[in-house]
C-alpha cells in the first residue's frame, strides 16, 4: 500500500481526522454548489412557490391550484406532456444512434469537436431558431421549395411547421445534441472487452446486442429519454417565437399571464402553473435517477 493509498483510506476519503474530517470534506466539495444554487435558483423558485398559494390580495388561497385542474389548462398540460414525450422519442433514437456511431468509431478529435458542437446546438432556441426553420421549412422555405421540385408537396399533404409535429421537428434541433451529450458516457462505458469476451464465448453480433448491449444501454437510454422529456416540457422561447397560441402549451400560458398585454390579474395563477410544471418534471426525474444509479454500476 503506497503512502497515498494509506492517506486515502478504505472509502476513498482523506484520513485526516475522524467523522468531522469526513463531513468537512463533503462540505467543502458540495458547499459552493449548494450555496450557488440556493441564491440563484432556489431563492427565485421560493418566491414563485410562495405566491402560488396567494390570491391577488396576498391572502392564502388554493384557488390557483383548483384552476390548474380545469380547462383550458388541462388541455395545455396534456399537449405539453404529449409534445415533451413525442419530442423526446423522436430525438432520443437518432441521438442515441449518432452517439453510438461517434463514440465507437470516431477518433478522439472528432468526439471532442462533436461534444463542443453539441453544447452549442443544445443551447440554440427562440427567435433565431424559429426563423431558421421558417426560412427552411416554412410555406416558402428553401427545403419546401426543393422538395416541391422533386415532386413532394409537404404543405399540400397537410404538414405545417406551426403545428404540434412541426414543433417536434424544430425541437429536435436542440434535443438531438442534448441526447448526444447525455448518452455518450453510456456508450463510452460499454467496454470493448465485453464484446470480445462475448465473441470468444461464441456469441455473434446480434446475440451480443440482445443479451448484453441493449440491456446494459437501455437504462441509460431511458434516463436520457426522461431528460429530453424534461427539456422539451419546459422549453419556452422557441414555442413563443413560432406559434400564436392555438397549440396550447403550459410555458406559453405562463408567459401570457406574466408578460402579456391582455390578462393582468392572474400572476399567481401563472406561478401555480410553474409549480405544477416543476412537480411534473420532478416526477419524471425520480425514475431517471433511480435508473441512472443502477446503470452507473456498469460504467465504472
Amino acid at each position, binding site marked *: 500500500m503506497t503512502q497515498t493509498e494509506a492517506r486515502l483510506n478504505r472509502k476513498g476519503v482523506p484520513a485526516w481526522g475522524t467523522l468531522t474530517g469526513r463531513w468537512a470534506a463533503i462540505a467543502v466539495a458540495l458547499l459552493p454548489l449548494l450555496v450557488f444554487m440556493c441564491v440563484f435558483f432556489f431563492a427565485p423558485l421560493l418566491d414563485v412557490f410562495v405566491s402560488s398559494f396567494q390570491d391577488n390580495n396576498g391572502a392564502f388561497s388554493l384557488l390557483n391550484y383548483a384552476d390548474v385542474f380545469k*380547462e*383550458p389548462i388541462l*388541455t*395545455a398540460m396534456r*399537449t405539453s406532456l404529449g409534445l415533451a414525450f413525442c419530442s423526446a422519442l423522436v430525438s432520443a433514437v437518432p441521438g442515441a444512434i449518432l452517439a453510438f456511431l461517434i463514440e465507437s468509431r470516431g477518433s478522439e478529435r472528432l468526439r471532442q469537436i462533436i461534444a463542443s458542437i453539441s453544447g452549442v446546438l443544445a443551447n440554440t432556441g427562440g*427567435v433565431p431558431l424559429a*426563423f431558421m426553420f*421558417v*426560412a427552411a421549412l*416554412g*410555406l*416558402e*422555405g428553401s427545403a419546401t421549395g426543393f422538395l416541391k421540385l422533386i415532386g413532394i408537396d409537404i*404543405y399540400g399533404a397537410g404538414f*405545417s*411547421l*406551426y*403545428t404540434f409535429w412541426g414543433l417536434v421537428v424544430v425541437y429536435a434541433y436542440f434535443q438531438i445534441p442534448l441526447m448526444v451529450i447525455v448518452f455518450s458516457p453510456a456508450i463510452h462505458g460499454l467496454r470493448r472487452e465485453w464484446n470480445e469476451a462475448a465473441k470468444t464465448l461464441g456469441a455473434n453480433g446480434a446475440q451480443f446486442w440482445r443479451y448484453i448491449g441493449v440491456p446494459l444501454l437501455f437504462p441509460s437510454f431511458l434516463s436520457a429519454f426522461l431528460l429530453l422529456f424534461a427539456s422539451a416540457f419546459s422549453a419556452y422561447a422557441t414555442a413563443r*417565437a*413560432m*406559434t*400564436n*397560441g*392555438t*397549440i*396550447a402549451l403550459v410555458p*406559453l*400560458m405562463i*408567459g*401570457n399571464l*406574466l*408578460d*402579456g*398585454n*391582455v*390578462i*393582468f*390579474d392572474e400572476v399567481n395563477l401563472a406561478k401555480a402553473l410553474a409549480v405544477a410544471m416543476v412537480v411534473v418534471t420532478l416526477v419524471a426525474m425520480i425514475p431517471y435517477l433511480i435508473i441512472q444509479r443502477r446503470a452507473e454500476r456498469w460504467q465504472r
Partner: protein
Amino acid sequence: MNLKRVVAIAAASAVALSATVSISTAAQAASVNYCKVTNLKTAGGMDALVKAAKKEGALNVITLPRDWANYGEAMDLFSKAFGIKITDDNPDGSSAYEIQTIKTAPAAKQPDVVDIGVSALNGVIGAGQDKLFANYKVANFAAIPSKWKDANGAWYGDYNGIIGIAYDASVSPAPTKIADLTNPAYKGLVALTGDPTAGQEPFMSVYAAALANGGSLDNIQPGLDFFKKLKASGNFSATKATPENYIAGAYKISLTWNFNAPGNIAGAKAAGKNLKFVIPSDAVVAGTPYIQAINAKAPHCAAARLWEEFLYSENKGKYTADLTAKDLKLSGSKLFNTIMGGQNIWVSGGAAPILQADMTAKKTIISGPDGFNVPKGAKVYQPSPDQQVTGKTLVAAQWPTL
C-alpha cells in the same frame, strides 16, 4: 452730497437690487421640485420646464417600438429639439412588463413615463393600491375626454387604432373585408400577430371577426367561431405574423393595427416586399386608447413632464429632418411651438389621437397616411374595458382548443 457720492450710492443700490433680484429668482428656480409639479403653471411656464428638462438631459421610456404609431419620429424629434437622450427599455415588451418594472426595478432602471393598455391600468389603480403614478395635468388636459382620464391627472388616454387587413401585394384577389379571408385561395396564408390571450392586437382582431359575423361588442363568440372555421379550412396558419416571418413568406395576410401598418410597409419595402393595408368594410373595430402616465418614481421629473406636454401638443410644425440649427437656439416655449406636436405625429403614424375632436374643430390636425383612416360614414365599434373582460374570459377558455 457731491456727484461722485450720488453715483456711488446709485451704483451700489443697483448692484444690491439686481443681486437681490437674481438671488430671489435663483431661489425661486431652485425651489421648484419638478417631481411635485402638477401642471405647466406650477412648473414656472414652458421656458422653465424646457430649461429644467435640458438640465436633466435624459429620459427613460419603456416598451416603445419605433414603428408603433411613429413613436420613432416622436423620440427623434424630442431628442434633437431639446438635446435629451432617450433610453428605450425593451421596445417589444408588454404592458405587464411596464407595470412589473415600476414595481420591482431598481431606481436606475425606472422608466419616467409609461404607455400601457387600459386593462393593465385597471389592475393598478383603485382603493388600497400603491400610488404608482404622479399627478400631472398637461396644458390640453381639459380637451381630453373625461372617460379617458383620471380626475387628478394620474393617467390619461393618448391614442387608439383600428384593426385592418395587411396583405402582400401578390395575394389575388386582394381582400377588402374580413369575410374575404375564408377564400380558399388564401390557404395557409392568414395569420395573427400573436396569441389573443397575450396581445391586444390579436385580441381586437377577434372582435373584428365577431362584428363581421353577426356578433357584437358583448358577444365575441362569432369571432371565435370564425377563426375556428378558418383553422379547419386550413386558411388560418398558426404562425406568428412578425415582419421576419412575412419576409420568409410564412404568411401573406394578417390583421393588424392601422398604426403599425405604415412602419410595416416601410420595413417590408426595405426588405424587398410589397405590403398593402386596408380597413375592412364589414367591421371597423377601434381599440380603447392606450394610457400615458408619469411614474411616481421617475428619475427625470422635468423631462418626463416635458415629454407629456410634447405628446399632447396639438401643434402643426416641423419634423426632425426639418429642424435647423437656428431653431435649436430658440427659447424653450418658442422651440416647443416650432416642432410638430405628439398628437400629430401619432396621426402621421396612422393612429387616432385622443384630442382628435378638438384638433379637427381647431383645424390643427394633419392628414394621416392615405387609406389608413376610417372610411367616411362607417360605424366604428370600440369595446369598452368591461366588455373586454367578458371577451377575454371566452377567448382564454376557447383559444387553446380552437
